[in-house]
């Protein structure tokens, strides 16, 4: 590789599973760190269950599409850490690593005999990032989360929906994505601090707790003004304000109209666009784009106060127009005139139809030995000197066991075979994949 990597020579021991932890280490890997993912097929969560295995392939530990996208840029070591021999091997690995990341419940690593104190004995300046649901301290530290539960408990779910309806919430584990971001951010911050001071530390990141600072303005409205967000008109759907309710800022930005989603031609499930006018000039431009219809000349729409007050009528008129155009055509017309508009995009739209993402190489194909060639998501940042690149496909389970055990840790080939025989590297009663048999030749 001609260009250097930002995290050249950084090694990460990655115990993470499911989604949030692996999403963190995916990015450290893209930035050039060596990620060693420690897995055990009997307790694995992330590869299975799989609802993203391509039609026509067997569902097994190596065929989850979502696992594959989430775990590019990593190596896999299959190891029973709950055995004395496995623990010894992990300790030898930590001794030559920079970062340990895990997203277990709060006491798991400690119970294995791998708490932070123990890690420090092996590698005094280790940066240890724990990514649990509620953190390692506090009375509810043993509680468990998924993204949707962290989002609910921390107030994020409440921010999404139409007034007088149940919360619409987030249609995915936003806090698995974002919790993963915080895991990576903590690891990088800890690493920078170590490089500057020589000192490692334990960083206690928690999915539920990390959700709370994302509600800042709503929280200050309560702690400063005493106003809660269980109130008429909140949340206001896609609007900045729900007509007929008290005129209060809704924590998304300026209170303006139009500010909504509108149906577009031909009226299918994802045929919607959003239009926002932040100022009168933008509204006047939108009126011109719509062909200066007579309704838009009415005084009641001339000011932002009027447009907010008559929002139902305004939105109905805009939608009658938007339904005459496809969402991409509408976007181009509006943006060319300086009007804020973009299409609602499904995953298919983003991968196939979004000209910007295509231009920026957001989805590039990568071959995988069990799944074939599929597009993989790239980084949203371009670093001029140390680009983030997806350098290797997601590992098959245990694919790099020999490379790590013999090559990196210096065990002999007989040790590897003995470890397979005694259940250290693979359960003795579980069928081995062909690449594991090859490893033992």
């Amino acid at each position, binding site marked *: 590789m001609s260009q250097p990597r930002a995290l050249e020579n950084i090694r990460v021991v990655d115990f993470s599973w499911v989604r949030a932890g692996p999403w963190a280490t995916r990015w450290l890997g893209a930035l050039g760190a060596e990620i060693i993912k420690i897995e055990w097929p009997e307790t694995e969560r992330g590869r299975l269950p799989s609802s993203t295995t391509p039609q026509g392939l067997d569902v097994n530990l190596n065929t989850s599409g*979502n696992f594959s996208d989430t775990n590019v840029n990593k190596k896999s070591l299959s190891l029973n850490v709950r055995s004395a021999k496995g623990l010894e091997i992990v300790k030898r690995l930590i001794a030559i690593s920079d970062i340990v990341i895990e997203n277990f419940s709060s006491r798991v690593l400690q119970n294995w005999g791998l708490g932070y104190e123990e890690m420090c004995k092996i590698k005094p300046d280790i940066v240890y990032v724990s990514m649990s649901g509620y953190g390692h301290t506090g009375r509810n530290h043993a509680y468990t*989360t*998924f993204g949707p539960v962290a989002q*609910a*408990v921390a107030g994020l779910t409440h921010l999404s929906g139409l007034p007088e309806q149940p919360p619409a919430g987030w249609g995915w584990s936003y806090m698995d994505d974002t919790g993963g971001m915080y895991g990576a951010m903590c690891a*990088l911050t800890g690493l920078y601090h170590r490089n500057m001071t020589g000192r490692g530390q334990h960083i206690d990141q928690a999915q539920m707790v990390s959700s709370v600072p994302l509600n800042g303005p*709503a929280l200050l409205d309560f702690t400063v003004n005493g106003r809660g967000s269980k109130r008429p008109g909140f949340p206001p759907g896609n609007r900045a304000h729900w007509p007929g309710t008290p005129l209060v800022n809704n924590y998304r930005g300026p209170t303006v109209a139009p500010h909504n989603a509108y149906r577009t031609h031909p009226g299918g499930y994802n045929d919607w666009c959003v239009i926002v006018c932040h100022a009168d000039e933008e509204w006047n431009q939108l009126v011109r784009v719509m062909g200066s219809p007579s309704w838009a000349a009415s005084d009641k729409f001339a000011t932002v106060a009027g447009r907010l007050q008559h929002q139902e009528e305004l939105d109905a008129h805009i939608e009658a127009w938007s339904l005459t155009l496809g969402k991409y055509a509408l976007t181009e017309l509006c943006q060319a005139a300086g009007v804020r508009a973009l*299409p609602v995009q499904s995953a298919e739209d983003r991968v196939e139809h979004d000209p910007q993402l295509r231009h920026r190489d957001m989805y590039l194909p990568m071959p995988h030995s069990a799944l074939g060639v599929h597009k993989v998501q790239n980084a949203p940042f371009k670093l001029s000197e140390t680009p983030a690149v997806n350098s290797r496909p997601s590992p098959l389970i245990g694919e790099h066991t020999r490379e790590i055990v013999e090559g990196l840790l210096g065990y002999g080939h007989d040790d590897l075979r003995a470890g397979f025989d005694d259940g250290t590297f693979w359960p003795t009663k579980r069928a081995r994949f062909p690449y594991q048999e090859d490893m033992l030749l």
Partner: protein
Amino acid sequence: MSDAQQGQGPLTGLRILELSDEKGQFCGKLFGDLGADVIKIEPPDGERNRHVGPFLDDIPHPERSLSFWYYNTSKRGITLNLETSDGRALFRRLAATADVILETFRPGYLASLRLDFDSLRADNPGLILCSLTPFGQTGPWRDYLSSDLLHMAAGGEMASCGYDEADVPNAPPIAPGGGNAWHMGCHYAYMAIMAALVFRTVSGQGQYIDVSIHEACALTTESAIANYVYRGEVLRRQTGRHHAPGPTPRTQFRAKDGTYVTALISGGLNPRNVKNLADLMDVYGMAGDLKDPKYQDPAVIAAHTSHIIDGLLASFIASVPAEEVYHAAQARGFTWGAVRAPEALLDDAHLQDRNFWKTVEHPELGRSFVYPGEAAIYNGSPWGISRRAPLIGEHNTEIFCGELGLSRGELSVLTETRVI
């Protein structure tokens, strides 16, 4: 750069210049609260986010925006008009002292002022300049306008959020509130800048970073891309739960006090989970017939899923307040939670145990207010809010005179001529 001491944030000694509006202010806060010296450079009249509500006591004023307060903690603030040559000269002098510059101007703007990366790094070879913009510096959409709602549409968030047809007929796709498109962009920008800083500790080299908020949002819909790429599926929106290729059982139930509860059954309705569920509901006399041994047969469970979920579970939750359901269920190993309004978090004992809430002094008002605290506890180098958001130009004298050596007279002249 001074050695960070125990008791200081992990980024102590770093200097960040922030030239940012709503798109990047949270990124600056992330750095400032972790100990970096973040200098926010605003236009002479102040950044436009000072005009975003809600406002202190609902009195609109650029020093009373709670949104501005929240996103600009732990920063110093100066004013500078970059469209004047004096302003640009002062900016160049500051840039020579910076580790990182974060900017959110439209692509090409800094270059039009001859303040682009190549010209700034001539005086500062280790400089890292991060441009955080809606669509990045290149491509057919690079000059498009955006907003939080627009990003949530094009990024794919809205296509995944909404309602079951039975709950709200003809509902639009829904964009969750709170300004999260900006959060997504700022998280990735923070990550990219930190990676560049780590690289600089080893190489001494700076670099330019181009971050796209659209791409950050497009990356933040969990499995939606994988469902399409690997199976060709386009997902449907469902009330208060995951998008899916086809309908899945509901997971959001209204509790006795009107608050909802998110009640997922991890691992699904298997005999063990059904037994645990029956035991939990039985404490409240709400187990119905679920203790019947027939429910230990997976086939019987499968035939009665609707009875168990939509009947028994929904009735149980409807009979108990949400917070009580949440804690009782968690105590028995169920990964459930109450759907709280943000203000309910102030009463959360767990957050109190973690000293999550911080009191921030506003000396100009003679008052102090409670702010949310840290996403993660850095045990070796603590997070902290070092000061409330800056007033407009609050640190002009401190920085222009104290650090750049301008005289009071020069500062006055530059202020009178709208440079500062």
